[in-house]
């Protein structure tokens, strides 16, 4: 028996979110009186694999072969399911990101294992095995019983803190044969080095109240100064004021930063659906009755054009820039 956690890598490296995932899996294992094993797919060096031990993985299984060079959901599912069966995994933990969403549901069917998707806490109980997950796009949460012997959980991003432990993981290379992928990647267009909106701990976001694309400089500057990323509401990306990959909300990106600045954003339900898991929301809006203030912990009622430059100046002062 064990808890298996799939840790994705980005060009051979793990991220903070990988460590959150392993920390979570270790805690679930503890609740079940067993240990956590991580599985990594692709080319990751030994030193990097070892890092997973610092968050509680007793063992790290590394699978690396040609048929797993690109993310083909069938091939990845085969590989992870084989590992799970070999080690007798009772719970499989996967990230609730794009890759995780393409693998976890397939694992659920392959192993006839109940899926708890978008879970944001440790299981409420292990018997019956009950998880707490987002429902109605953040309008509510559901306690869901996973009724099968083996379970699959996808963990919501930034929902669990990293826990470091003194522990030395055993690294094991495993040969697993999987069929050649049916999907073929023809071309990759990738901007590397840029902080991803979904990884950012601080996000500064602008809405229609910013009035025009020309007014974005202080939003970008504030985000840069805080080491964060920029985002926007849907009408802003629809207008072409900002790129589509910044669109946040129900029909855009769902994010969970520690600090979310909503500037000139009214706070429509569909926008809130994408940001309601943020630890703190800060609202700047010239309308005191804007719904965004109902979900914000900090607010300024005022004109964004006047307030933003002063926020930028204040951060510069604090950071000594």
């Amino acid at each position: 028996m064990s808890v298996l956690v799939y840790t994705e890598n980005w060009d051979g490296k793990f991220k903070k979110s990988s460590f959150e995932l392993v920390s979570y899996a270790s805690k679930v294992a503890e609740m079940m009186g067993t240990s956590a094993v991580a599985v990594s797919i692709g080319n990751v060096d030994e030193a990097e694999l070892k890092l997973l031990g610092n968050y509680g993985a007793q063992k790290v299984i590394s699978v690396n072969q040609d048929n797993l060079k690109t993310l083909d959901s069938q091939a990845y599912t085969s590989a992870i399911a084989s590992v799970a069966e070999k080690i007798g995994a009772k719970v499989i933990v996967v990230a609730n990101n794009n890759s995780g969403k393409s693998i976890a549901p397939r694992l659920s069917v392959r192993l006839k294992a109940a899926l708890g998707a978008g879970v944001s806490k440790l299981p409420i109980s292990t018997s019956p095995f009950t998880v707490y997950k987002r429902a109605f796009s953040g309008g509510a949460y559901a306690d869901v019983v996973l009724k099968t012997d083996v379970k699959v959980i996808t963990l919501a991003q930034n929902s669990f803190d990293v826990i470091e432990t003194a522990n030395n993981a055993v690294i094991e290379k495993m040969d697993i044969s999987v069929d050649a992928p049916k999907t073929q990647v023809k071309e990759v267009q990738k901007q590397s080095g840029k902080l991803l909106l979904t990884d950012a701990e601080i996000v500064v976001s602008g809405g229609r109240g910013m009035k025009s694309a020309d007014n974005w400089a202080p939003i970008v500057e504030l985000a840069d100064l805080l080491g964060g990323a920029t985002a926007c509401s849907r009408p802003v990306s629809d207008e072409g004021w900002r790129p589509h990959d910044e669109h946040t909300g129900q029909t855009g990106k769902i994010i969970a930063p520690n600090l979310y600045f909503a500037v000139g954003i009214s706070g429509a339900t569909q926008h809130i659906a994408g940001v309601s898991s943020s630890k703190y929301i800060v609202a700047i809006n010239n309308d005191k009755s804007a719904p965004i203030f109902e979900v914000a912990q900090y607010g300024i009622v005022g004109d964004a054009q006047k307030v933003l430059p002063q926020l930028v100046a204040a951060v510069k002062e604090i950071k000594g820039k």
Partner: protein
Amino acid sequence: MKILVCISNVPDTTTKVKFVDGDTKLDTNGIQWVINPWDELSLTRALELKDDASTGVKSVTVAHVGLATSEPTIRKALAIGADDAIRVNADPTDAYNVAAQIAEVVKKEQFDIIMCGIESSDFNSSAVGSMVAEFLGMPSVSAVSNLKIENGTAVITREIDGGKEIISVPAPFVAIVQKGIAKEPRIAAMRGIMMARTKAIKLYEPVAIDALTETAKFEMPAARAACKFVDAENPKQLIELLQAETKLI
């Protein structure tokens, strides 16, 4: 080529949900039901492909797993332009069960492309599309922001962290679509609404497959602390507060 678009029937996106029976059931009183936003866009893209004769797409069918109460939502999809519809007469209780029912439909009717949304706005599992594919042993592509058909084969744009990939995949396959798949949802014109009345909704009885999960109880989101207001004349104070209280700056 035949396309199947899977549609989920969800409360209007502005709904403030409430629960009854000791918080075990959704209070459906006064709820407006709509086609899940992603599925509306997915249907739109399927119809765009059909409109373009060069793609070879001959028909667009919608499928829904749900009770008769969801027929108005299916009619809406027909009014928007779907050629026909299938309803599996089952109470949808989890993604596994829903996907198993859809897989049975596909086995009987044979489609080349099956389109699902990335997430249903009610239970947010992002699961049905990939599960359908696994039940059928088909390839699936997630995070699809564009789907084209060139010389009879599908060319897909998949969103990845910090960029995109162009992927080709042989039919039949499942495409799990997200932002970008279509610009604006197509809306039903008067003619479409009239025609929808005469289009068939084919009824399938469900196969016996148990759900693997059960919703024990709903909870409202934890209350957030009330907003602390800072004077607009002194924004610096906001930064000081954030620094002192959240330790994030």
